[in-house]
């Protein structure tokens, strides 16, 4: 439980030191657990997001709990235990004007802009609605600000007159980003913002986020299943598996010197345009396990190519693997030493 700006959690579950030296985090998630019935969708996760410009990547497969964490930050799902603090305030206990201010400070962009834009509302009206609700600018200048936001998101201001169905997927996602940024949030949650888009459109949206990040000193959480996406935009990355942090550290370290076999496999699964590299993929057998019935010991052990007896018996704790680098794996030292992992699995489940 974290009820205030407390910075000292238990030594073995506290978040990794993130961001510029010593700066207090903008957002702190401490030992967060979210339950859906018997399922622990998020199971004791601790994360820090530094003040901007800063990006934290949350990487994992479907069912890893990454989107649930994003939703919890926005208070779209309640949590069972643990806490979230924003700028020193306990997010869970915000009420009235303080909650409204938080709802302005923290914004979210979802994967599918089709479902987050009202089909019966013109684009300009969609953005104006948010501006009015939060009284960001005087009424008279609402439409100017909306047009300005569209320009900033790389769209023609004339798009204000159009409806969502008249826009392409990439343009709709730009509108969703423009709307989120129109109220000048301090924290942005980007939940798979490019997964529904073509690669070329994705590249444009990632460039837009990079530009807005430096122009507006944005602090954001980028949720994705693709390591390629976080590598360009996040200095820190947390890898999630079945509701737990498997590994967290500087994105560069996770990409090139990961200590968790799952991180190594996820990174290896990212396709590459280099035709010569195609034979060296690590293929994990099967799907992530059922969260309602998690495996014993390390939840990753049934799919792990390096699993030993200890892995099915004992839950690995998140421990130091290097400066600002934490890992929950009994075999982290072997992974760091370059233990070979098979590149093909040809067996029946």
């Amino acid at each position, binding site marked *: 439980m974290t009820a205030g700006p407390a910075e000292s959690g238990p030594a073995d579950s506290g978040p990794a030191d993130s961001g510029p030296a010593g700066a207090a985090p903008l957002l702190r998630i401490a030992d967060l657990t979210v339950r859906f019935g018997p399922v622990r969708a998020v199971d004791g996760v601790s994360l820090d997001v530094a003040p901007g410009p800063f990006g934290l990547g949350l990487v994992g497969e479907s069912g890893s709990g990454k989107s649930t964490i994003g939703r919890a930050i926005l208070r779209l799902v309640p949590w069972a235990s643990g806490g979230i603090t924003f700028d020193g305030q306990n997010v869970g206990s915000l009420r009235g004007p303080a909650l409204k201010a938080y709802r302005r400070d923290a914004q979210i962009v979802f994967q599918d802009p089709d479902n987050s834009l009202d089909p019966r509302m013109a684009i300009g009206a969609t953005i104006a609605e948010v501006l009015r609700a939060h009284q960001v600018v005087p009424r008279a200048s609402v439409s100017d600000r909306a047009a300005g936001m569209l320009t900033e998101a790389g769209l023609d201001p004339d798009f204000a007159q159009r409806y969502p169905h008249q826009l392409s997927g990439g343009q709709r996602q730009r509108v969703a980003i423009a709307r989120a940024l129109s109220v000048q949030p301090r924290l942005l949650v980007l939940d798979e913002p490019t997964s529904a888009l073509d690669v070329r459109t994705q590249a444009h949206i990632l460039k837009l986020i990079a530009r807005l990040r430096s122009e507006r000193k944005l602090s954001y959480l980028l949720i994705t299943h693709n390591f390629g996406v976080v*590598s360009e935009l996040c200095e820190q990355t947390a890898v999630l598996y079945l509701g737990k942090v498997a590994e967290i550290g500087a994105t560069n370290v996770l990409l090139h010197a990961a200590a968790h076999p799952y991180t190594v496999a996820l990174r290896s699964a*990212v*396709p590459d345009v280099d035709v010569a590299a195609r034979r060296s993929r690590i*293929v994990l057998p099967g799907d992530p396990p059922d969260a309602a019935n998690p495996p014993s010991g390390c939840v990753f052990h049934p799919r792990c190519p390096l699993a030993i007896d200890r892995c099915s018996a004992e839950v690995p704790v998140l421990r130091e693997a290097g400066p600002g680098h934490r890992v929950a794996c009994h075999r982290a030292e072997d992974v760091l030493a370059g233990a070979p992992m098979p590149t093909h699995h040809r067996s029946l489940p």
Partner: protein
Amino acid sequence: MTETGRLGVTDLRICFGSRQVVSIDDLRLGHAEILGLAGESGSGKSMTTLAILGLAHTVGASVSGSITLDGQELIGLPQERLREIRGRRIAAIFQSPSTAFNPVYRVGTFLTKALRLHGATRSEAPDLAAGALRQVLLSPDLMRRYPSQLSGGQLQRVAIALAVALRAEILLADEPTSALDVTVQAEVLDLLRDLRESIGMSILFISHDLAVVAELCDRVAVMRDGLVVEQGPATQVLSAPADPYTADLLDSVPKLASPL
């Protein structure tokens, strides 16, 4: 390998009324070859798939030119004849496997119905289905489950299993991994590569992502606005693209080197 081609597309024109959306002069898929058809939404790659399946008319498009399967012309063939080819000899899998299944049929029912439609007897269909599931590395126990009880990756494998069970010679794979996690994508790509090697399946692999194409394909054709702007061996097209659009698509792939 590609001189004759199992599947040949020549002077293909697809139009909606007077508006031409696809114009392909020459595209060939050889025996046990994997050809990548790359391009963005709207480039005409999925319309090309529909035309090959003889289904372009269902979305109101008209098709002219030539599409041949082992030398046999498909354009103009009556629908009854096409129905024997479609599914049986030319199978297709799509981006969202969940929409390819009837949610009220168990996976086993779905497979055996499709097999019986293409001539399997009542007694042999379940065995064929079970064998095909094994071949795509799924347990035959899944036959008792409903589509909603399977993951996206498992459903895509079941769709591939049907093509395997029917001994399809050609698989049209239209963005088959775009909706999947990267780890599951890697598995499905591995499976497709395996099927090409083990049963000599020819695969037309359609994707907007050149990195995925690079993982799998022997040759690549890049489409833009209904035209093939470049085609050639994957090693050549992806390492030294001749068309600036191909280079742009390649640049769009996120790089794993972190610039931060």
